């Protein structure tokens, strides 16, 4: 192995190697799941476990491989990348490849471990479900897609992985597509992500065009060495990439899809919508961190702003949710807000550290919730309660997850959240710091609420809940261990190995927040957590909510806003979807009535008719009219509008083509 030395800002000299043969074969990790998915598709149903064994075996291999990589990385430090040229578009080389460094190894490990546990869990959880084999195909496919994403050394591969992950998410959210809600949730997730992806795509194109390369390492090199071409577009590209990240990582206001995505089976929620997929945005930001830090600093402020908004708003909504999985979903959104805000504040390690711990305890919470749901056949906390006695294992692991999330020492969340708070404090973002503390309080509060309503008090549901069997509880226990202990890898002053891991990469992190215990932040965070737990316990256990399942305190107007999720969905419908539909329809109808019909009536003959369109265009008469119509919106043509709201493909196509033709004519003959 070849050893290289680099200078790090904080740690002095870091030694890393090229990883040797182990790194060379990382592509196996990426390719294996796809082959496995293919095998499951074709041969799955005839196998004794209906294809689950292949999925499990694949993931186990991935996990073991990532474990080996992790060991290598901890002992030696690895940073290397590999490229395969598959073709070119113009001057761009289309390259695929894999990157082996601290960041990606950390992600391999998280994906491998959580996926393995979730797969084990799912073999039991999904037993007897509809499309069991298909489920494992998609899940395996997802693992592969996620690995494509995190292993990508080029932007184009990131984009491909990004889309693949989105598709798998769509498949899995809509797993029970027979119920329309589920399929529309899948659709919603897909479309929301697509909107964000446009940002990502444009960002990638801008970066690629200005740097002349698709390789991330080269772009980062250019960014850190003040290449003028990239400097000009840094802010725009940074924001656009962040928009992409906002979609996947469910940042306000594009977070709306994640809670609905809970329509998928619980293992899916645990794996994708808590632990891995949603962190793709954070991963992207982290991967591009030198770029942000070096030349797109302004963009980081925006990142931080959205992160903080997300962490607060999502946390508030979580308080009023009755659906256990939705509480966890909003909690996830909120925690993602923490990570994004941390990145925004320049705390590269802190963000990734939170990603690392969060993956374990949130997966744990989701799997615990799944175990509960499996037992009571309902998602609603109103139909739970008193499960402590019947499901002791689930309860105890859930409690560990809860305190880890609430940030009590010595559990994982304590260390990671504290580091984020500390970095806010360090950066001098006082307002955001206090909001984050408030967020910690809210987090502790709603998690206590959830625990009280679910496990304490009396059972309010129907049927007879029972403890899940060992196939489901074993992953819970393993995850509980990680939820408790995964924070110990980065205790400032004691052992900061994690920092070293994630900063070991080809493009060094020039500057990052150094770890040290910020006693002020630590105290405030801990207090907020304890307060939240206390208040929650008081309100829900001592006041007896846990018995009835009601919220005893309700500040009506606020509750209403929260329950309606700040009316964001309604806003989208009212101000974006409907207007486009209505006004476009009106505009085109007006165009039809006023322009086309008139011409037809006036001239009839096609040739002369076309001539007049051109003439009128030049005259600007028709165009003026159209513009007027579309801007005035509501007027006397309303009666005919219905005709255009048919949902018919042809009419949409007609609108599209009409637009294309108009624009082309405009460009050709007028401009």
């Amino acid at each position, binding site marked *: 192995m070849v050893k290289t030395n680099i200078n790090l800002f904080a740690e002095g000299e870091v030694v890393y190697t090229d990883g040797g043969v182990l790194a060379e074969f990382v592509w196996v990790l990426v390719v294996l799941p796809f082959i496995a998915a293919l095998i499951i598709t074709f041969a799955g*149903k005839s196998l004794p476990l209906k294809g689950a064994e292949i999925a499990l075996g694949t993931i186990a291999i991935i996990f073991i491989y990532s474990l080996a990589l992790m060991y290598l990385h901890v002992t030696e430090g690895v940073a290397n990348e590999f490229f395969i040229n598959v073709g070119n578009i113009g001057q761009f080389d289309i390259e695929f490849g894999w990157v082996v460094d601290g960041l990606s190894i950390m992600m391999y490990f998280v994906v491998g471990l959580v996926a393995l546990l979730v797969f084990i869990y799912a073999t039991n959880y999904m037993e007897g479900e*509809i499309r069991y*084999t298909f489920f494992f195909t998609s899940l395996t496919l997802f693992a592969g897609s996620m690995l494509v994403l995190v292993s990508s050394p080029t932007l184009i591969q990131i984009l491909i992985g990004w889309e693949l992950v989105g598709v798998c998410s769509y498949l899995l959210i809509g797993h029970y597509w027979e119920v329309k809600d589920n399929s529309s949730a899948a659709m919603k997730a897909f479309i929301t992500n697509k909107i964000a992806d446009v940002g990502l795509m444009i960002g990638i194109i801008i970066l690629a065009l200005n740097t002349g390369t698709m390789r991330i390492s080269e772009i980062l090199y250019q960014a850190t060495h003040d290449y003028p071409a990239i400097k000009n577009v840094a802010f725009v590209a940074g924001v656009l990439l962040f928009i992409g990240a906002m979609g996947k990582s469910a940042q306000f206001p594009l977070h709306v899809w994640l809670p609905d995505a809970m329509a998928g089976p619980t293992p899916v929620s645990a794996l994708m919508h808590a632990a891995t997929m949603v962190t793709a945005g954070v991963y992207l930001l982290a991967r591009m961190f030198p770029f942000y830090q070096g030349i797109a600093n302004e963009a980081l402020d925006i990142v931080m702003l959205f992160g903080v908004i997300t962490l607060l708003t999502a946390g508030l909504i979580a308080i009023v949710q009755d659906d256990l999985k939705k509480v966890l979903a909003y909690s996830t959104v909120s925690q993602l807000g923490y990570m994004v805000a941390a990145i925004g504040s320049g705390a590269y390690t802190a963000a990734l550290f939170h990603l690392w711990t969060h993956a374990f305890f949130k997966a744990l919470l989701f799997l615990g919730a799944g175990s509960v749901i499996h037992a009571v056949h309902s998602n609603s906390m109103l139909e739970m309660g008193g499960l402590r006695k019947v499901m002791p294992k689930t309860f105890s692991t859930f409690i560990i997850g809860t305190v880890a999330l609430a940030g009590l020492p010595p559990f994982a969340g304590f260390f990671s959240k504290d580091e984020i708070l500390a970095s806010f404090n360090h950066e001098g973002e006082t307002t955001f710091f206090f909001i984050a503390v408030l967020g910690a309080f809210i987090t502790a509060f709603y998690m206590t609420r959830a625990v009280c309503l679910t496990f304490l008090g009396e059972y309010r549901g129907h049927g007879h809940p029972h403890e899940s069997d060992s196939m489901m509880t074993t992953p819970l226990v393993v995850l509980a261990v990680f939820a408790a202990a995964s924070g110990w890898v980065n205790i400032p002053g004691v052992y900061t190995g994690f920092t070293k891991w994630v900063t070991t990469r080809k493009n060094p992190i020039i500057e990052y927040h150094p770890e040290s215990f910020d006693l002020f932040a630590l105290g405030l965070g801990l207090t907020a957590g304890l307060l939240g737990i206390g208040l929650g316990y008081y309100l829900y256990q001592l006041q007896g909510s846990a018995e009835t399942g009601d919220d005893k305190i309700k500040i009506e107007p606020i509750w209403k806003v929260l329950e309606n999720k700040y009316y964001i969905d309604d806003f989208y419908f009212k101000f974006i979807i409907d207007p486009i539909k209505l006004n476009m329809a009106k505009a085109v109808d007006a165009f039809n009535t006023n322009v086309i019909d008139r011409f037809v009536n006036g001239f009839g003959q096609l040739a002369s008719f*076309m001539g007049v369109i051109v003439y009128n265009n030049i005259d600007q008469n028709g165009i003026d009219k159209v513009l007027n119509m579309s801007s005035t919106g509501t007027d006397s043509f309303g009666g005919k509008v219905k005709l255009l709201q048919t949902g018919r493909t042809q009419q949409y196509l007609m609108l599209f083509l009409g637009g294309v033709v108009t624009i082309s004519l405009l460009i050709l003959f007028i401009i």
Partner: protein
Amino acid sequence: MEIFEIVTYFVLLALLSTAIRVVTTSNVIHAAISLVFTLALTAILFLMLSTEFVALVLVLVYIGAVIVLFLFGIMITRAPLGKNAELDNDKNKKLGAAIAGSIFLLFSYILINGFDGDVTITSGSSTELLGEILLSRFVFPFELVSFVLLAALIGGITLARKDEALIDEDQV
């Protein structure tokens, strides 16, 4: 090459008239058969432009296979025999014609202004060379094509298969 041009114009005219028939006839089967002629004339045009192999591929795949698929589709969807008065969306006719017409004018304008040249054909283009290029320079798309075809096959089968079978099998 006087005769060559005359024949070309003749073919183009025939091509156009059959294509018009494809989109205007009110008999579904007639439209499909008109498309056969459109494609056959296109193949003749390709032959005249010396691209022998492509012309034959057009005949083999399009006329020999795709049209058959179309005919199956038409028969399965129970298109009525004879004229079908309800084949067109009369509401869309004017606007459609307008849009199509403007696209035509637009394209013609661009094409006539943008391209001019002459062709001199000395021999048919070599299929051997075509194969060599296809399997060396375009090997990646070539392999991708197999995936596209596989996807189309599986997709088509999944869609066209009776749904009850799908559900029975998957409720493991």
